[in-house]
């Protein structure tokens, strides 16, 4: 064992061991649950099965929730790209105060998202602030029902995760060399063409990184649909919680959980193949 820290690879082992025991091992345990019947600790002989996965597609109820979750997360991602692109562009190209503005933008992100979701409940409920304003301005005659629908869940998710889209977009736009755009304009390209062929194309890294940071947590969200949603806006997260806390079917619950985990791992690996890993952590703007 070398006494010089620089040469000492053993220093990595306590952390790696912790990671193996308290992160990789738990994932392996749910893998085992998802391909077996009944509890592992019940003492009965273990039987392997793929039924836990198949029933997701057999029971209509599960399939509806699955498709709805994918749709809501997809909408969340698309809306957050549309919302944040102009802001990221402004921050990267049109202002010198960008660093401080980025810090300010991240302030709400650090405040517990339950608190922010609570604020949306105040705004969206039947006698909430939005309805009061709309009634006061005579735009509507009676309160609009937004709370406890898929719309309120979508609004909550977009609000919570849009800052995660702004950061990588801003970082990717910041890296674009303005002289490329000037050159294309000098060579006769229109402004629109210069934007789509250069700026937009080079910001695709940011869009993909942001998509990872928005789509995955939105798909796995649990508290936001639980607080803002109603019976028609149950998402995978709530369904998984039910399997463990109400139904008590650990095998099916593990299969759902594992599918979610595998999906996110595949997305991350796919991304790191194309863009390289370092761009994910550089883009997080820590």
């Amino acid at each position, binding site marked *: 064992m070398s006494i010089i820290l620089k040469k000492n690879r053993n220093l990595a082992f306590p952390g790696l061991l912790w990671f193996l025991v308290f992160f990789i091992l738990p994932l392996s345990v749910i893998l085992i649950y998802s391909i077996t019947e009944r509890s592992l600790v019940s003492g009965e002989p273990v039987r392997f099965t793929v039924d836990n996965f198949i029933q997701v597609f057999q029971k209509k109820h599960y399939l509806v929730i699955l498709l709805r979750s994918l749709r809501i997360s997809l909408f969340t991602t698309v809306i957050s790209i549309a919302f944040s692109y102009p802001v990221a562009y402004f921050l990267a190209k049109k202002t010198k105060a960008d660093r401080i503005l980025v810090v300010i933008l991240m302030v709400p992100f650090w405040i517990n998202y339950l608190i922010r979701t609570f604020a949306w409940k*105040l705004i969206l409920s039947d006698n909430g602030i939005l309805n009061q304003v709309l009634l006061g301005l005579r735009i509507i005659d009676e309160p609009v029902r937004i709370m406890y629908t898929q719309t309120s869940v979508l609004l909550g998710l977009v609000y919570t995760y849009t800052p995660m889209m702004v950061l990588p977009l801003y970082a990717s736009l910041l890296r674009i060399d303005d002289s490329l755009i000037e050159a294309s304009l000098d060579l006769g390209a229109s402004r629109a063409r210069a934007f789509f062929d250069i700026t937009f194309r080079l910001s695709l890294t940011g869009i993909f990184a942001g998509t990872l940071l928005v789509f995955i947590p939105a798909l796995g969200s649990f508290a936001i649909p639980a607080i803002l949603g109603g019976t028609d806006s149950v998402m995978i997260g709530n369904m998984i919680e039910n399997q463990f806390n109400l139904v008590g079917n650990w095998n099916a619950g593990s299969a759902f959980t594992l599918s979610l985990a595998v999906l996110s*791992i595949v997305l991350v690996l796919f991304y790191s193949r194309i863009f390289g890993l370092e761009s994910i952590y550089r883009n997080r703007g820590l």
Partner: protein
Amino acid sequence: MKTGRAIGLRIYTALFFLYIFTPLILIFIFAWNSGEGYVFPLQGFTWRWFMEFFRDRSAQKSIGNSLIIAISSATISTVLASLLTIGLLKGKFRRPELYITFLMLPVLMPSLTIGIAALVFFRTVNLPSGIPVVILAHVSISMSYVFLIMMSRIESISLSLQEAALDLGASWSMSVKDIVLPNLMPAMVAGWLFAFMVSWNEFIVTYFLIGNNTTLPIYIFSQLRFGISPKVNVISVLVTLFTLMIIFILISARGLYRRVASG
């Protein structure tokens, strides 16, 4: 034409910031509003909800639990992740990027999967729910964040100085105390604060592992389920102020780091 577009972008960005901050501003306003409901026009100024909060033992207990969990998990994960980063980046691992990919997973995977996996795992090995297992689970999440912070900094720091100090006759403990730690300290402080905030805000994993106990996010969640009371506004105001303080320290720690690194 060109300036018109720039002004449009400026207005849009201002509206975006308004959108991001309006919910928080509303929470602040209603923390001091004396009316029962959340109705405009405002009823008048009051400290009543603050008084109610300070009489609420269960809220205070949940804050205490959150602090215990956040401080212990941040400390453990900072120590583990600092050693891990040095060993992994400077210790000649074959294919370090493979390890880095795996270490990214807790950051990029939905917390729900981490929470469920931890719940099933701890039940299977028969560890009871409660604060200790929450700390264990929080460490394995926040370790990845600290690792990410340490990684970009350790890459830029040369640890050869320690070798030089040893060659010149310094003892091992002196070389660590005088050379290595001062170099790493700003990044470790930033990592610790980040880990603290991750744990302090963490809800889903805690929800599955905490058992009958509560932390602050769990307390807020249960309050939201029962319907809403201005007491939640008071908690939000206090948490927001506390958070702003931590962010301020975090930024100063980063500034300190830049000064150390550049001079």
